[in-house]
């Protein structure tokens, strides 16, 4: 049984994967499954409680509709915004993880494989990263340079690359001097070839564990940043910006900020379970 098959036989991983696929499917199928456009607003249907129905508008021929999760302060459907919001939240999370993994792996491989001065420099970079509260610096940069999708992705990637770099470096160090790598080198294989054929595939599985935990971290951090207004553009629907929208309505319209919070919780739980499952498969001893 290979790693992936074993993964699917682990209960938390299977459940996590299923939950995550559900969220991804909802995000992809947003135009099909969301009751209305996330931007359709109706000042006459503001702050409707979940399960209530908005009045029909004779002048615009807009029929009244059922708002399963209520409406927000300008009369937009919360469920539709939640579904469309998942696109941005997931996309930002995935992109950040991908970018972070790319940077981290690259630096990890380089420093582990080549050693010497390069190792010292990357080691120092990792040290710098760990010795400073990066989120704080991130807030400063986002505030000063302006937020937005790309900026948030970069900041999140910069905040997580170090996790990959450390794992990959230690993996590379332990593999570097093993027989088959020595043999490949003796057979005249170039550095690139050795890295791609012999070393990277062996670091892939632990990387996935780190990636799933980073994904959870990225989604939570993006929500925090957007909540403070320093992250994604407040005018675009994302779970973090929706949370912020509902802040002043805690008493009168609790659903506005409660729903996106639950959505974040569900997604992060899915990702964490998947990560936990992977860890179990890779290192049965570490499982609690």
């Amino acid at each position, binding site marked *: 049984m290979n790693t992936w098959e074993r993964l699917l036989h682990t209960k938390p991983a299977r459940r996590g994967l299923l939950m995550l696929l559900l969220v991804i499917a909802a995000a992809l199928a947003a135009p099909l499954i969301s009751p209305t456009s996330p931007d359709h607003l109706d000042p006459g249907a503001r702050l409707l409680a979940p399960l209530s129905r908005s009045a029909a508008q004779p002048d615009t021929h807009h029929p009244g509709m059922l708002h399963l999760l209520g409406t927000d302060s300008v009369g937009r459907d919360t469920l539709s915004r939640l579904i469309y919001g998942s696109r941005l939240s997931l996309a930002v999370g995935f992109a950040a993880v991908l970018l972070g993994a790319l940077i981290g792996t690259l630096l990890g491989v380089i420093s582990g494989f080549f050693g010497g001065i390069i190792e010292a420099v990357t080691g*120092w970079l990792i*040290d*710098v990263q*760990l*010795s*400073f*509260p*990066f*989120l*704080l*610096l991130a*807030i*400063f*940069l986002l*505030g*000063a*340079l302006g937020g937005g999708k790309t900026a948030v992705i970069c900041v999140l990637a910069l905040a997580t690359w170090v996790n990959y770099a450390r794992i990959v470096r230690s993996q590379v160090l332990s593999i570097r001097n093993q027989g088959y790598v020595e043999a490949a080198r003796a057979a005249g294989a170039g550095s690139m070839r050795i890295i791609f054929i012999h070393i990277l595939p062996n670091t892939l599985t632990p990387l996935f564990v780190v990636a799933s935990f980073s994904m*959870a971290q990225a989604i*939570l951090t993006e*929500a*925090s940043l957007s*909540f*403070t*207004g*320093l992250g994604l553009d407040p005018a675009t629907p994302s779970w973090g910006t929706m*949370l912020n929208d509902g*802040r002043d309505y*805690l*008493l009168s319209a*609790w659903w506005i*900020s*409660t729903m996106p*919070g639950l959505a*974040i*919780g569900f997604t*992060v*739980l899915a990702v*964490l379970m998947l990560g936990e499952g992977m860890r179990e498969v890779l290192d049965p001893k570490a499982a*609690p």
Partner: protein
Amino acid sequence: MLSAVTNRLARAFLVLLAVSFLTFIIGHDSGDPVLLLARGDATAAQKQELRHSLGLDRPVMAQYRSYLENALQGNLGESYRQHLPVTRLIALRLPASLLLAATAFVLAMALALLSGMLCVVYRDGVLDKALAGLAVLGQVVPGFWLGLVLVLIFAVHLRLLPVSGAGGIQHLILPALTLALPTFGRMSRLVRAGILDVLGADYIRTARAKGLPERDVLLGHALKNALLPLVTQAGLELGDMVGNAFIIEIVFAWPGIGRMTVEAIQQRDFLVAQGCVLVIGTGFVLINLGVDLVYAAIDPRVRARA
């Protein structure tokens, strides 16, 4: 040992220097404080005069040099918005932040130890599962969202606790709990796993064979040995808290340095923002150093190596 410490300190100083440079340059480039200070209808000449009197018309490197010189003497400049010394503003806010972080940290650690032990004692029972659920909850929902929900329940509906601000101990409860929960979630799992790990070791079996009561085995032997590897994680968690406290401070309008940082950034009051980043960064560096020293002090292996 000593040289290791000085080495760390020197590196930390370099990091802080780099951060101060980065924040200064970016802060300088991203907004004109004079536009913020002057009224909309002030003339260009009046604005220029103000710029000159603040020394903002000098080359940026000259400005950075004097900023650095003053900073080394403990002067972080003056807030553009409030015309007050940055050090005074920070001194006003720092105690609240320290109180919140310290309370949350102690709370998280105490609850994590308690919960970890309970989970071991009632292994695979209902309590174990319930506490595991709580631990997961702490990790999967955003802390500030949980804070909002707690405010909604305890402050807005039940009116048992204040919505926000600082004051008596009742003001501290919700923010401290909210800040503590993610750390509690991670630590309680680690404590549980750590104790279970140690329980399988030879000396525990010896202790049990000697006929020691289970309670003494757990508290006297297992816990002590399980705690050691947790010190590093606890240090990381403390650093994490310092970094994440800002959002909890915003949600609860807690008059701490984290909230001041974000407000200063939003108002483009960059001398205040820079000062806050430097002070929090310094605190973070010192905590990391402290953790390493504690670890070295209690772990004979590390001590021997150093």
